[in-house]
């Protein structure tokens, strides 16, 4: 699956995009975020407060219980500030 990070999530994690295999036992966004937190201090810091993390799967906003599967594009980013 493809993972995308924007704005300060990108800065904290240190990369804009990465490809990972769907980790064993992960079936939804919440599980994926738990797994990502274990990948290093940058991830743990970026994902510490989910109140300020938005998630899109295949370019649609979703909640933490949304399923993830191989091939998905999962994006994590802060609340938007355009306009």
């Amino acid at each position, binding site marked *: 699956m493809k993972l995308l990070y*924007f704005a300060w999530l990108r800065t904290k994690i240190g990369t804009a995009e990465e490809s990972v295999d769907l980790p064993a036992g992960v079936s939804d966004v919440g599980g994926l975020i738990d797994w990502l937190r274990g990948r290093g201090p940058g991830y743990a810091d970026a994902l510490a407060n989910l109140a300020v993390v938005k998630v*899109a799967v295949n370019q649609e906003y979703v909640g933490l219980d949304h399923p993830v599967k191989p091939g998905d594009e999962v994006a994590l980013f802060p609340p938007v500030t355009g306009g």
Partner: protein
Amino acid sequence: MAVRVQREDFDIGAELGALTRGNTRIGGLTSFVGLVRDMAGGDAVGAMTLEHYPGMTERQLEAIETEARRRWPLDATLIVHRIGRLEPGDRIVLVACASAHREAAFQACHFLIDWLKTKAPFWKQEETPAGPRWVDAKSTDDDAAARWERG
């Protein structure tokens, strides 16, 4: 019915002129232009850089535009949003709605910018004397968008 994300500035007169040209059913055209202010949260801001999520941004803008057209009788709509580095006084966004009736044009234009601000994946990073700073989302923007939730 057009949505564009671009680095270049836009020509307001040309954009609005094209929106109504040849359609004499249109009685009113409301537009909003957002500009970079030199003050934000009390600190002087030199410039800002706008980042977006290519692909999802366009999808979200189109979805917002579709929702506006479902709610109001609109003859034409336009959203142009810039990305990249912008300085104080630069234009950021243009939203325009044309309708037979001015009330629909006003409501729809107001709706589009309010929803864009909370739903379209853009992020601003300001240059401040203390270094770059990601702009926080504003609760007033959430409140403005929430007014339109009832549909």
